[in-house]
């Protein structure tokens, strides 16, 4: 029963704060609401039994990405200034698009996924298993994507410095 209560609290946090994040007038508030959404998502990962993903989500998103966002907002915004949105016509069009897509996908999910709701009890993902899968070269092991990601991170560091430095 506790699991259900935690799930519904997290789901309510995600739903409310993700909508607030895209409708808020102040951008710093939007960033704060985004932080709440990311933390609640980390909670969902914990609820599903993936502890490592929980730690990664907290460290990378709530730690790294949010700091970048706050820096960028403080560097580019005048304090106390509220944001302009698009024209009302476009906002209505965006809302209609979002709600139509939401209704369509909800219909698809409800009619197709309702047949497969068996949750196997334990995810049993030990750190050894995780490390072997991440560092192995066999089938279904991920050394190659891991190294590709590290090259991508290096390129991203160099590129970000090149773009953002003063000439």
């Amino acid at each position: 029963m506790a699991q259900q209560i935690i799930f519904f609290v997290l789901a309510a946090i995600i739903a409310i704060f993700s909508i607030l994040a895209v409708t808020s007038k102040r951008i710093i508030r939007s960033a704060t609401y985004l932080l709440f959404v990311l933390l609640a998502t980390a909670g969902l990962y914990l609820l599903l039994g993936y502890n490592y993903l929980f730690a990664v989500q907290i460290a990378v998103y709530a730690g790294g990405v949010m700091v970048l966002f706050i820096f960028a907002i403080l560097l580019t915004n005048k304090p106390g200034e509220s944001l302009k949105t698009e024209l009302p016509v476009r906002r209505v069009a965006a809302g209609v698009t979002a709600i139509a897509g939401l209704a369509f996908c909800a219909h698809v999910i409800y009619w197709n996924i309702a047949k497969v709701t068996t949750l196997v009890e334990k995810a049993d993902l030990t750190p050894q298993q995780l490390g072997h899968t991440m560092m192995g070269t066999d089938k279904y092991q991920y050394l190659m994507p891991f190294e590709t990601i590290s090259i991508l991170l290096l390129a991203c560091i160099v590129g970000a410095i090149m773009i953002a430095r003063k000439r």
Partner: protein
Amino acid sequence: MDILNNILAGQIPMELYLGVSLIMFFAGIYGFLSRRSMLMILISIELMLNAADINFVVFNRYLFPGQMEGFFFALFTIAIAACETAVAIAIIINIYRNLTSVEVGTLDQMKE
């Protein structure tokens, strides 16, 4: 009714997780289409990526609990999202330095 029975029997059904990520994803789409500030658009993109991550993990956990493909996809998506945010924020700061504004409508001044 099935959903209600599952909840009372002590299992959270899969479509509730998918519904949560659905709301998050379409909130992201609404923000992407209705905002002018590039930082707000970036926040919306983060919301959408995060919703996709939840979907990967939930599908892995419910449908293929013995395997780890969805888990690693989510892991690598988080890393790629961090890279993308860093580069995008560098670009936004550079644009702000040139135009003193981060609104999408002023971007076509970059041509001149």
